[in-house]
């Protein structure tokens, strides 16, 4: 047996089994909930998280979330088992197991979340863990690129989700989904409906890779195969679908919802199915069929018809079962033959009969052959499409085209590599798959058959509760039956099979045609790279324009911005009050202080020596400190005096180390410009202060601190009590900034000194 990664340590064997045990335990935890949830109950668990912000860590379990939870933990257990063997002996297997388990828990949190904030946090966690997993082969530049691409696209969707849920939360006055549903009902008529819906749709479409955001998903196949099977097929990419389903009762029923989901879902489904035929890499083919499934789900979530929703929920389950199995089989084939090229692979059925059997089971469900669950799913989809009031032709047309192509793809990935002659030499002589890797696909394939034969339990325990959850009320959902009689759906199915077989027969020629066409068509990937390059270029240009590296430019920009903001505020103030204030400082000490400040400023402006200018500024600072003393604020005055002293010392030290620069006098044009800015700033501040003192000072805060300072914080110096007790968190933030600034200066100053030491 060929093992790719050498010996496995015993510790790693334990690491491989831990997530399996965890997943099985979680699965076992959710199974007993089937009873009450199936009876229409909703289980809710909540903990206070940030009570001052009204944010709870809360979970609710209804039909929809329970179905997802079972899929995540159930398939998760099989995937963990598979990966323990797939990556056995890999030097970074521990890291892989950690990422994958972290993802599993994040995904679980996402589908169980009640609070929108909780949902968002877990949503972002799935994005991050997905990034880590796609980039697991981090020494490969393509992996890194594809990982960042997925991160950017889904991260942008996450931003949209955050904005959307904040608007929704603000409109509803709560972040709890269950409360929003109870109190707001359908938001179709709400003033803020359009922004909320658009933002949620953006989040769902990026996460679930709908056209035109689809391009990251096939690229995400750079991840190890178990990851592709789990994240980019069975679970994570369905998070977008989950969001659509979850928000269905609140957001559906409008033109915006129906049109965008129908059109984008339909386009995605058909486009992806065609692309799937075009691929020669087994994983890429499966990646595009995943896109097709996501498109179909989106398409069917557009409607309000219980039949269509039943179809969507059934298909969601069907797809998770067969797609995870097929991906795992692709991994086995890759492992055993060293290639995933569909044009080379062939004749594996004789050496790998069990793998071939599992593949046949899963692919039959994918093609929708009876008596597999895939057949029932497809029948209900057709029946649901037929019952739509609008978009009937479009939905059915897209459905038939996509499903016929799925029949062809099922043949391409599960029949041809195993039972048709090989098209080339594989790198290794294949042998049957290891048991640990075969368990997953076998169980999933067998389930596809079992649920097809006995759909009753599935219907009552999982599908119907999920449909009720999506519809937001108890509805009459479609029955899951293998034989529903001779009806339109049956004929559509037969037509699909016929079309599918023809397409399979023609697929080699079709692929050549598509490849020729593909070369002419614009590529989303090229566009993406151009977009990133443009962004970097633009950022560099902007930085060069603004960040000149000349300190006086920065000072000028800062003051001009301040001038614009304050001046604007003054001009647009509708009720300006200009009352000439009474000056309590018009006594001898006050006047002297003013004189000191004025002459200090004048000195700093007129001198051409740096040291003199610094001394002048120091005089201004001391003048300000004296004002604080006059108004009896000793703490502030002491601080001001000490800071001024230290600034002069620092400036002097810095000035001594500077190279001999030209004197301070710049060109007269620059000087006049500076003078203009200074005078403008001074005038605006003066005007502002005159307005401020004209209004009586609001003393509520002062009074509060005066009253509470001693009894509550045991201190009589209010300034200090505020700093270290009432607003200690602010102070902590400030001293952190101080330390960071000092470390930054330390890093900047350190190398110069070392250079001098060397010299």
């Amino acid at each position, binding site marked *: 047996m060929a093992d790719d990664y050498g010996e496995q340590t015993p510790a790693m064997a334990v690491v491989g089994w831990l997530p399996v045990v965890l997943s099985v335990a979680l699965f076992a935890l959710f199974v007993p909930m089937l009873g009450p949830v199936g009876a229409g109950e909703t289980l809710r668990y909540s903990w206070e998280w940030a009570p001052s912000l009204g944010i709870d860590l809360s979970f609710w379990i209804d039909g929809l979330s329970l179905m997802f939870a079972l899929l995540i933990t159930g398939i998760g257990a099989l995937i963990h088992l598979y990966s323990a063997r797939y990556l056995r002996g890999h030097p970074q297997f521990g890291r892989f197991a950690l990422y994958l388990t972290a993802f599993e828990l994040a995904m679980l949190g996402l589908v169980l979340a009640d609070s929108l904030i909780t949902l968002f946090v877990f949503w972002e966690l799935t994005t991050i863990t997905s990034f880590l997993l796609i980039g697991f082969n981090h020494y490969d530049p393509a992996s890194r690129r594809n990982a960042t691409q997925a991160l950017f696209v889904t991260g942008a969707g996450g931003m949209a989700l955050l904005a959307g849920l904040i608007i929704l939360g603000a409109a509803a006055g709560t972040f709890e989904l269950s409360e929003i549903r109870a109190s707001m009902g359908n938001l179709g008529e709400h003033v803020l409906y359009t922004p909320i819906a658009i933002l949620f749709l953006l989040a769902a479409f990026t996460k679930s890779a709908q056209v035109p955001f689809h391009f990251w998903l096939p690229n995400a196949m750079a991840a190890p195969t178990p990851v592709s099977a789990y994240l980019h097929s069975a679970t994570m990419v369905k998070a977008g679908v989950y969001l659509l389903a979850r928000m269905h009762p609140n957001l559906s029923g409008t033109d915006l919802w129906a049109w965008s989901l129908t059109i984008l879902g339909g386009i995605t489904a058909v486009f992806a199915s065609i692309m799937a035929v075009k691929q020669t890499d087994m994983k890429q083919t499966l990646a595009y069929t995943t896109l097709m499934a996501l498109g179909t789900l989106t398409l069917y979530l557009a409607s309000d018809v219980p039949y269509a929703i039943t179809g969507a929920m059934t298909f969601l389950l069907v797809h998770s079962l067969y797609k995870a199995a097929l991906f795992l089989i692709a991994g086995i084939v890759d492992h055993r033959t060293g290639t995933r090229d569909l044009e080379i692979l062939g004749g594996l059925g004789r050496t790998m009969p069990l793998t071939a059997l599992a593949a046949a089971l899963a692919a039959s469900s994918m093609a929708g052959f009876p008596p597999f669950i895939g057949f029932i799913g497809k029948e209900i989809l057709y029946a649901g499409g037929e019952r739509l009031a609008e978009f009937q032709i479009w939905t059915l047309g897209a459905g038939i085209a996509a499903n016929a192509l799925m029949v062809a793809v099922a043949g391409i990935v599960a029949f041809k590599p195993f039972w048709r002659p090989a098209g080339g030499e594989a790198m290794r002589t294949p042998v049957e798959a290891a048991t640990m890797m075969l368990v997953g696909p076998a169980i999933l394939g067998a389930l596809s058959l079992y649920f097809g034969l006995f759909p009753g339990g599935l219907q009552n325990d999982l599908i119907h509760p999920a449909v009720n959850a999506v519809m937001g009320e108890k509805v009459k959902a479609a029955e899951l039956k293998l034989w529903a009689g001779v009806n339109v759906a049956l004929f559509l199915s037969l037509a699909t099979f016929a079309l599918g077989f023809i397409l399979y027969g023609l697929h080699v020629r079709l692929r050549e045609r598509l490849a020729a066409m593909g070369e002419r068509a614009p590529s989303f990937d090229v566009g993406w790279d151009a977009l990133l390059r443009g962004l970097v270029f633009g950022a560099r240009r902007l930085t060069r324009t603004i960040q000149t590296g000349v300190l006086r430019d920065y000072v000028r920009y800062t003051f001009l911005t301040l001038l614009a903001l304050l001046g604007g505020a003054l001009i647009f103030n509708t009720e300006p009050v200009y009352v000439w204030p009474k000056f309590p400082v018009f006594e001898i000490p006050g006047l002297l202080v003013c004189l000191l400040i004025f002459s200090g400023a004048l000195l700093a402006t007129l001198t051409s020596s740096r040291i003199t200018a610094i001394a002048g500024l120091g005089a201004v600072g001391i003048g300000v400190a004296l004002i604080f003393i006059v108004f009896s604020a*000793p*703490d502030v005055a*002491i*601080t001001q005096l*000490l*800071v001024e*002293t*230290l600034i002069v*010392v*620092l400036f002097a*030290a*810095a000035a001594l*180390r500077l190279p001999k620069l030209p004197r301070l006098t710049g060109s007269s044009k620059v000087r006049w410009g500076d003078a203009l800015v200074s005078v403008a700033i001074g005038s605006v501040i003066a005007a502002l202060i005159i307005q401020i003192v004209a209004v009586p000072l609001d003393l509520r805060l002062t009074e509060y601190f005066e009253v509470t300072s001693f009894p509550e*914080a*045991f*201190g*009589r*110096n209010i*300034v*200090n*009590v505020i*700093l*270290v*007790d009432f607003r*200690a*968190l602010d*102070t*902590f933030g400030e*001293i*952190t900034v*101080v*330390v960071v*600034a*000092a*470390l930054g*200066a*330390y890093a900047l*100053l*350190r190398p110069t*000194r070392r250079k*001098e*030491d060397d010299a």
Partner: protein
Amino acid sequence: MKSIILHAAARVLVALLLLFSVFMLLRGHNLPGGGFIGGLIGAVGFVVYAIACDVREARAALRVAPEDLAMAGLGIALVGGLMAALFGDAFFTGQWLFIGATEDSKGLPLSSVLVFDIGVYLVVMGSILTLVFNLEGDD
């Protein structure tokens, strides 16, 4: 620029300034002062020493690197904030202990607030000395 008078006075001055800075730190809760001011005064003390003698000597007198002092201060301030967690209160809720308190006197008050203020003191002193020592140079 060595001045013998300043050099001789510096030792006394530094001692006085440091003592004064601790005094300001401790009285801060009820009278003008506190960790910020105390830290500034302490920093001024060492700056005077560095100007009068030499940065190298000032560094030796301080014994620890100023940047370490600043970071230790930040850690102490954090500990001061976290102390509240031991008593089940929110982050940065002041915790007080009055040692030897009687009917009419509060005794010796000790608090997490003081720990926090000591952290502030060290941060301010350490940060400023990091700047000054590096700017003045060791040469």
